[in-house]
């Protein structure tokens, strides 16, 4: 694959990559760093196979599938890197005022919510993203949803 073609595919993925990185850390410059670092890691790991990929002959459906795959792997690297930088990112998370209940969740729950709700990931893709089994997903879903709605459930109980 030529660099120009890879660049044009990446351009389409940018909004989703930013959305995901911003879900990991709510500070623009840190989120952008996270994307660059994760993309470097992804490319170092996969440069050989990416060069061999011949996307020139793909039709629009195949190209869309290719982009999904690319986005999946880059977001996975963003997530892995965010986990490693955990304590460094925490200070940014503590400053946040909007979407407080979301940012109070751990990284895994945040990743789970944005993947399943914003990007419409199904179980198979989630299992591949988190390298886990189906029963783990049930736990992740429960933790993420209950954590996010914690304040709302409390309020409802008080109102009743």
């Amino acid at each position, binding site marked *: 694959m030529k*660099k120009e073609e890879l660049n044009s595919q990446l*351009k389409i993925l*940018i909004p989703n990559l*930013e959305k995901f990185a*911003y879900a990991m850390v709510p500070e623009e410059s840190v989120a*952008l760093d996270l*994307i660059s670092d994760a993309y470097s890691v992804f490319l170092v790991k996969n440069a050989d196979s990416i060069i061999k990929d011949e996307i020139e002959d793909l039709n629009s459906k195949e190209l869309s599938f290719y982009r999904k795959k690319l986005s999946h792997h880059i977001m996975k690297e963003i997530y892995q890197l965010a986990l490693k930088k955990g304590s460094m990112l925490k200070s940014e998370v503590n400053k946040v005022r909007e979407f407080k*209940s979301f940012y109070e969740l751990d990284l895994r729950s945040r990743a789970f919510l944005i993947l399943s709700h914003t990007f419409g990931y199904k179980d198979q893709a989630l299992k591949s993203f988190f390298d886990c089994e189906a029963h783990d997903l049930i736990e992740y879903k429960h933790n993420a*949803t209950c954590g996010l709605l914690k304040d709302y459930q409390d309020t409802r109980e008080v109102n009743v």
Partner: protein
Amino acid sequence: MNVTYAHINAYVRGVLPRELESKFESAIQDDPKIQEIIERKKDELVLINSLIPARKTTKRTATIIQNDLELINDEILTEEKTSFLDKVAKVLDTTVLEF
């Protein structure tokens, strides 16, 4: 059709297979209890979606990211350089053999 929670969840999220959708809808038609569950789940879904940040990428940010990624591609993907060197090596090999 036996309606399960998996069906309800898939229906609320709009991912119930099309062939099951009409069967599901007719199965719940006369069941106010399930309809109530569906309404509650729909409300919950709206609430969850409203609590997840939906960051919109500005033109400026998109340009910054695009430039960064292109720079990384230039640094890491050395396809052209390798193939050019290969070509030179091949020419030299051929030349040596011919002599």
